């Protein structure tokens, strides 16, 4: 019987052979990314983490940024960053929180009313985050990421072996770093939504990795005499069809979100797109070779029995 197949059943790609090259590529991307982060003077934190205020305004017609800038200068917001955001929409960000934050939305509304007729614009969103809260949110976000890693480490260590757990964690740290690097190179802003997206990548990445680990475990038990290197190659090849199919459907969904999800979801979807691609790559090229690497350092109990 003929199946619809993207990957033929007996595909035998020597993935392990590419391990060193893949590692080098990953390392290069991460190093360039981190360098670009340092070059830019740290990550581009949004107001959630850095504190500050954000106002989103929707106009009936395409607004003139210069005219708006003049208006804002009159109320002492000359340090604000004005960006267009979707159709006829702009986002105004001010870094400082010292000023009278309480009336920012109202103040902008009054000053815009002097330039634009009433009803031709609408203030859609006002966000003001004080520096204290910003610090707090940063701390909580980092804690969430850190503990989710620990949790995964413990569970995978318990279900598989410690070296698998370590391989999985390194793979997902790899995915997060790659995503952070590329996202920073695009000079996008980090906010709480992006943290949620990074955490999803953590979930996805480990999900993918576990599927392959599971196969390695199964094949290692079935073929006790086989070299671990070959077991890994066999397992990655066997699950390759699934890896590609699942990633394909997830990517499909993400592309839809990216284009149709609206302005707020846009960056969120972008991070997930980068992360998912990095995730597939790391599952195949990074996670399993690490298990092999640890085998060379300290052979596991199962294989020593042969």
């Amino acid at each position, binding site marked *: *019987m003929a*199946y*619809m197949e993207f990957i033929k*059943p007996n595909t035998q790609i020597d993935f392990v052979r590419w391990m060193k090259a893949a590692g080098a590529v990953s390392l290069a991307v991460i190093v360039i990314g981190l360098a670009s982060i340092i070059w830019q003077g740290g990550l581009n934190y949004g107001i959630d983490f850095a504190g500050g205020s954000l106002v*989103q305004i*929707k106009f009936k017609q395409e607004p003139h940024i210069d005219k708006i800038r003049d208006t804002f200068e009159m109320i002492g917001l000359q340090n604000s960053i004005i960006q267009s955001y979707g159709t006829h929409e702009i986002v105004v960000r001010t870094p400082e929180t010292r000023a009278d*934050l*309480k*009336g920012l939305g109202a103040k902008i509304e009054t000053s815009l009313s002097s330039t634009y007729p009433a009803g031709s614009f*609408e*203030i*859609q*969103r*006002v*966000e*003001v*985050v*004080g520096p204290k*809260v910003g610090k707090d*949110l940063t701390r*909580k*976000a980092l*804690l*969430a990421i850190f*503990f*989710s890693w620990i*949790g*995964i480490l413990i*569970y995978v260590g318990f*279900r598989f072996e410690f070296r698998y757990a370590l391989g999985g964690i390194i793979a997902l740290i790899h995915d997060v770093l790659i995503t952070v690097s590329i996202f920073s190179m695009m000079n996008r802003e980090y906010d*709480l*939504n992006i943290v*949620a997206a990074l*955490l*999803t990548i953590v*979930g*996805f990445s*480990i*999900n993918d990795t576990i*599927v392959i680990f*599971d196969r390695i475990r199964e094949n290692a038990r079935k073929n006790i005499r086989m070299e671990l290197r070959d077991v890994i190659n066999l397992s990655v090849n*066997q*699950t390759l069809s*699934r890896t590609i*199919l*699942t990633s*394909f*459907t*997830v990517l499909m*969904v*993400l592309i*839809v*979100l990216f284009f*149709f*999800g*609206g302005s*707020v*979801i846009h960056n*969120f*979807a972008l991070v997930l797109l980068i992360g998912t691609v990095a995730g597939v790559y790391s599952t195949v090229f990074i996670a399993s070779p690490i298990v092999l690497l640890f085998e060379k350092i300290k052979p596991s109990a199962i294989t020593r029995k042969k």
Partner: protein
Amino acid sequence: MFKSIKFRAALTLLIFLGALFYLTPTVVPELPDFWTKKLPKDKIHLGLDLQGGMHLVLEVQADKAVESTLERMSNNLKETLMQNKIRFRNVDRIAGGMISLELTDPAGRDPFEKTLKNNFPDLEVDSSETVDGREKVYLKMKKDRAAEIKKLAVEQSLETIRNRVDQFGISEPEIIPQGDDRILIQLPGIKDTKRAKNLIGKTALLEFKIVDEDYSLEEALKGNIPEGDQILYGLHLDRETGRQASVPYLLKSKTLLTGDSLESAKVQISDRFGEPNVSIKFNTQGAEDFDRITGENVKKRLAIVLDGSVYSAPVIQERISGGQAQITGSFTMEEARDLAIVLRAGALPAPVNILEERTVGPSLGQDSITKGTWSCIIAGILIFIFMVFYYRASGLIADLALAMNLILLLGAMVMFGATLTLPGIAGIVLTIGMAVDANVLIFERIREELRTGKTARAAIEAGYAKAFLTIFDSNVTTLVAALFLFGFGTGPVKGFAVTLTIGIVVSMFTAVFVTRIIYDYFVWNRKIATISI
């Protein structure tokens, strides 16, 4: 029992109907009477980012509550020491929450300590030193007492704000304490955010003080403020020009009466100008005090001070009994109404700071819902087509499971009262992606088994058995991550974690349990020999 197809199908149907049951209020616009009376009528709870509204995080400046308590204590201390004929001078409040004073007579130390112990159990001597034969004593509040005042200040602020919001009339407000000294407030669907902020953030400390007319105001403005006096300002509206001016008042610092003595406050329209004013009524003790104060100060001016600003300072014409008074000022109707609300709800024990504010307009929320829904539909259709294209009839089974997954997910969210946020919608769309994964794993396994020459029935059994462990491990690992997100996450992160968690659990059920029933039906009952996969 679990082998029986009938039993499994019935269980699935039951769960499915349960989800539909919880979803009905969200989908059906007008429910019949019997439903609204007895059955759950909660709609799916939308986050502020979707339905619009205001999110505030306030910080209660609890230290200020300690300070004002200390201030009161230091005034009382002066009086008590005078009554007990202990000679002292220079009672001062100094930085670091301390009171300093000098005992002029060394013999006064023992009676002083005794007075302190008997009348001011909350104060203790921090240190003392002898300067030029006079003993200088530093007093501070006991630590646990200060902590208690802080805690009380936060609790009382929470209660007061809750009262104010309730009286303002906002449906489903959420006011919850956060950490040691923070209060999180969510007001869905609110439009006049400025007014709401004023109402919530106002300390609303109402004080009555006597205007000091024995000294010259001009001198005081130059800096020669007499001992025990203070200068406060009030806004004065010139009725003819319509201009507002800031007017200084020289007041005796001592507060004679505060808003604590109020029983009620309501808006009234004055006969003279047709302007609204706030009429207040004192409680029994307050009325007595007011009666005495007005009696003692006839022909003097009594300043009505709200949060350090003088609203009016009428001359007391005669003793006022009955405990009624009016606060006038150039109020609009709304301002008068809000002032009455805050006076009724009481003053905040300490001022509050706004640490975080997020306001989302209703149209942006609607926009997000529309776009989110469309993303779900488009993504759904694409996956539907792809699965049928790749896995034929088996793809159709997976699609069926997927549709059910969505309904169960939304139903479960209503049941648990979880909030759907914008990242939550993204979470749902991602769940669609992940639910497909479980079926892909199973189908790929079944194909592998079929390739080894197994029969349809054996291949299905082996495929499910082998794929299950993988699905279980990978999903539980994601679940572990999701639970930590839920525990530590705030705002969008939390909303995302909720949908992800429910999504994972539901997808394990639909993708593994439900699809198996369909296969089993075909190979057991219909005895099909080949699978379209």
